[in-house]
């Protein structure tokens, strides 16, 4: 419920969506993290992570520009959105984009495609 309150602070979603995201988003993020570390479906996982970080970064920037004094909701509670948190999340987004591009290049060269998929194509 505390995470749902962090989402609510952004003032963009209706209550039902806030509660839904508050419940499921941390688990989804955990799953993405595990897949990234384990290298499972890396191309899609990296794209999904990039998409998520892009949304987070856009919402944080919007809140900051609107002058909202709200919790970032990034790494636990108590961190208000600031230039420092925006810089950190921007860096994470940059890293994620780099990963997504690298993975795409590698798969495009056929080096990390699973053998079954490679033979089928």
């Amino acid at each position, binding site marked *: *419920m*505390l995470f*749902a*309150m*962090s989402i*609510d*602070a*952004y*003032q963009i979603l209706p*209550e039902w969506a*806030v*509660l839904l995201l508050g419940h499921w988003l941390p688990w989804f993020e955990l799953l993405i993290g595990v897949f990234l570390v384990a290298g499972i479906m890396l191309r899609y996982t990296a794209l999904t992570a990039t998409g998520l970080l892009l949304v987070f970064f856009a919402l944080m920037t919007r809140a900051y520009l609107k*002058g*909202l*004094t*709200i*919790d970032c*909701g990034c790494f636990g*509670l*108590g961190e*208000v959105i600031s230039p420092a948190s925006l810089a950190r999340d921007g860096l994470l987004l940059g890293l994620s984009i780099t990963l997504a591009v690298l993975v795409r290049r590698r798969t495009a060269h056929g080096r990390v495609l699973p053998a079954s998929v490679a033979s089928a194509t």
Partner: protein
Amino acid sequence: MRIILTAIAFASLAAAGNQPLNTRGSSSSPIKMEVFSDYQCPGCKALYESTLKPLMENYVDKGKVYMVHYEFPLPMHAYAIQAACYALAARRIGKYDQVTDVLFRQQQSWATTGKVGDTACSVLSADEAKKVRALAQDPAIAAEVQTDIQLGRAAHVDGTPTVIITHGAKQYRVPTGAGYQILSRFLDSLLSN
């Protein structure tokens, strides 16, 4: 660890005689909500107007939540200490709610002009205003503000508004900016436990 340190800080300050003075509701309520706030902070204005006001009506006044308010004027706000002194002075004559209300409502105005006293006294009678102006200069009131700041620092409060909810042995820091609807759901879930 942070929660334990906060609890120890509050317990030790209470034991030293620094009992919270600015309270609302029954101390036997199942939930305690501590609010560290600064009259010049826009986030505190938003919290007060959209969350605390309905919360006081639906939870505090109904005996579900015990609210403790601490003055936590931030150094970056030039008139915040003065505003806190006026609010505490008004509490002495039973006009805390009215003065708090007008200070937040006209925050933008007095934060620019510095006319804190005029704003605070605009909701008081001439006689009350005279008393409050005198009390606001009282060193005892300034000491109360400093005590609240000290309590906040001991509780690792580093910004405003900070809201700490205690239910039983558990403490929760409410994310800054959380709206009333979700907060009330959280309080209801605590109350149903």
